[in-house]
């Protein structure tokens, strides 16, 4: 039984989810203590419980402490089982976090699995479905993970109602991961995805982006989608030779369209100020799949708390060498050797 101190590092839900993922993939039992200690509402919240139950479902784990507010969970994984799974998450949680928690484990099997997610897809507190599809999954492809996704309905906060599928294929062998250069920019675009909100909001966001970042009309996309409730998300995308990066800003009640645009633009400008290919959010998401493959290295723009936390969790559960080396002001080299 490996004991993980959930209060270390970022000290929130990520350390909990990462522990579950590795426990399932490695077949190791874990006891996660002090979960979200010191937070305003300590212990498991609903969204963490959702991830725990999803993990339990795919590997018939023996679990104790699966209660709201629980600060200690024992997770003893059983045999992973491929197949069709349906996870109704509701609006409070995020379907993408559930997906990221369980897909590496299902990819280890010889058979494909078909997952159906219902709930939030674009809620601003987790990677959006679009981020997963455009930024995350292409890099997973490099690591041998083959996942097809398809969205049927968008789920904004608070109404939820999103619906998407992921087909997870058996993992392929892949070379050592290597992402040190961006390569030339192939395309760039701004996409507003919106439902049940006046169209001028989306137009104002694009207009505001246009002032700082000249984009041709065909690079600006307005997607008016069907959704149960209102929602708006602005996504700025850079397609480069070796990587695609996605920078998002969620429209919220009481936040002006211009402010939403600025929030996204700042992220793009920060990214462009560096030469490192991997943005802050993608960086920590790459580590576990890399550790489960051949390892490798990448350069990233930031040494975030999430990144450091994931490194610590991986070190506790696996015998790998991980190092971070500062190359410049917004340039870090992360190396992982299995």
């Amino acid at each position, binding site marked *: 039984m490996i004991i993980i101190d959930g209060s270390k590092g970022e000290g929130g839900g990520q350390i909990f989810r990462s522990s579950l993922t590795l426990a399932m993939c490695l077949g190791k039992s874990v006891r996660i203590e002090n979960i979200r200690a010191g937070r305003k509402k300590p212990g498991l919240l609903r969204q963490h419980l959702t991830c725990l139950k999803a993990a339990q479902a795919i590997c018939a784990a023996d679990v104790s402490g699966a209660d709201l*507010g629980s600060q200690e969970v024992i997770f003893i994984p059983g045999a992973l089982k491929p197949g069709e799974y349906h996870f109704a998450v509701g609006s409070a949680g995020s379907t993408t976090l559930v997906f990221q928690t369980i897909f590496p484990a299902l990819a280890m099997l010889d058979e494909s699995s078909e997952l159906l997610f219902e709930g939030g897809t674009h809620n601003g507190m987790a990677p959006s479905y679009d981020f997963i599809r455009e930024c995350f999954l292409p890099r997973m492809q490099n690591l041998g993970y083959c996942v097809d996704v398809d969205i049927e309905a968008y789920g904004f906060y608070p*109404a*939820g109602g999103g619906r998407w599928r992921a087909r997870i294929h058996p993992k392929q062998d892949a070379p050592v991961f290597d992402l040190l250069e961006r390569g030339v920019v192939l395309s760039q675009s701004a996409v507003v995805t919106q439902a049940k909100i006046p169209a001028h909001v989306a137009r104002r966001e694009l207009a505001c982006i246009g002032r700082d970042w000249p984009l041709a009309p065909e690079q600006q996309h307005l997607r008016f989608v069907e959704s149960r409730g209102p929602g708006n998300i602005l996504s700025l995308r850079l397609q480069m030779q070796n990587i695609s990066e996605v920078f998002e800003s969620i429209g919220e*009640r009481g936040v002006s369209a211009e402010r939403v645009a600025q929030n996204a633009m700042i992220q793009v400008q920060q990214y462009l100020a560096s030469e490192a290919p991997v943005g802050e959010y993608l960086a920590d998401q790459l580590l576990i799949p890399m550790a489960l493959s051949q390892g490798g290295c990448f350069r990233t723009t930031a040494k975030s708390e999430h990144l450091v936390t994931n490194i610590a969790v991986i070190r506790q559960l696996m015998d790998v060498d991980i190092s971070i080396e500062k190359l410049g002001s917004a340039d870090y080299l992360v190396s992982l050797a299995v």
Partner: protein
Amino acid sequence: MKTVVISILGTALDRRGSKRNRWSKWRPTISMCQQEDLIIDRLELLIDARSQSLADIVTEDIQETSPETEVRQHIVDFTQPWDFESVYSTLLDFSRSYNFKPDRENYLIHITTGTHVAQICLYLLTETRHLPGKLIQTSPPSKDSNSTGEYQLIDLDLSKYDQIASRFKKEHEEGTTYLKGGINTLNATFNRMIEHLEQVSIRSEEPILLMGPTGAGKSQLAQRVYQLRKHRGKLMGELVTVNCATLRGESAMSALFGHKKGAFTGANHERPGLLSQANGGLLFLDEIGELGLDEQAMLLRAIEDKQFLPLGADKEVSSDFQLISGTNRDLLEAVNKGHFREDLLTRIDLWTYTLPSLRERIEDLAPNIDYEIEKYAKKTNSQISFNKTAREKYLSFGHSQQGIWSGNFRDLNASITRMATLTNGGRITSDIVDEEIVRLVNKWSQSIGKNSSPSLDITKYLNKNTIEQMDYYEQACFSVIIESCKKANSMAEAGRILFDKSRETKASNNDSHRVKQILTKYGISFAQIKNI
């Protein structure tokens, strides 16, 4: 454990926002199901038939945002949502018909939706445990916040709240201190009795019977119970105190129950009577054992039906009063002798308290001395105090064998008054105490002499030391034994006189043996008695 919420569909709050704008509005029942640290396994949604379409929207929204929650709709009658009686019975019917499984499910009663009347009813039903759960209250998010608002759980088991519990305790302590007249009494039995009486005074309006010797403080206590109840809003009317020993004959009836003009010779005016005067207030009947049988009968009816017939009236009048009775007599014995109605006794002694004599709680002498001094000082607007040796002398006398205190607190009150009156410059000196002790000793020896007079002189039969150790009661018993032996020709005959009742219930009688046993105890024989 599953979490089950019982909530009334909020026909205003849950309808907020037009159908299209509803997600930008805070809707309590839906937001309750979206909380990140609360999973509701089942929602029992109480709806009126006219709100079915709203209920369906709310149900659908909940199922979408909170797939863990099963929503059950219950059609109930809320046609008069502002009528307390109708809403209460609707909710009571629901709670009675609902199959609660408290061992497997936790219940939360949502009180943010529904009319204020409905919220009050839910509160009452929860407090009385008809709805066995905690209250849940939801509140909107702060302005411009995108959150789903907040919720609070309220457990009506108030003992769980330290602050409230300590305030209750304080209030209770204030109440008991009040009943003790602010005297910091030390006697544990007395203090326990007062604590109990405090709770009864506040929670119950049933009759209270105060027993205890003269001067033990019955009427003061009755008065304080009255003040306490009045202070806590338990009664509005006045306190009417009657000493039944002062009521005699025809005038007793009239004084208690009133009379009509011309009811009897001399009844020139209508008189409402003391019971009517106590309407809405408290009636203290001191020395209730002295009340005549006719008055007892009337009083019983007045207590039971709150109605009685004034003298000369042809119609009953009603008076709703709370009752405290006081007695220094053994009412049970009075019942046995036919002097007191048994049915009246059972009606007035629901709460019975026996006030100990001063002698029985002699540790309370000191605080009562302080109290009496202060009372006197206040009344006369002067400064009164003991000098130290004087106080010690008085206290040690009070505690000694000599301190008989046969008149109890009345004696103490009189004694302090006398000493305080005699001071020069407000200081009670040793001399004053010495004089007072002489006065008290005289007074008490007289009263003992008076008590002893009917019985025969027992000093001829027992030595002085033995008699000094004997209670007055025991001395009286002994004198009766001597008297009977004198009369009888044999021990058996004496036994037949002494045990005239109990011997009949025994299978075999050995009367002489019982007499002999008693005499042996006192070291005296039948023959010796005969010879003296």
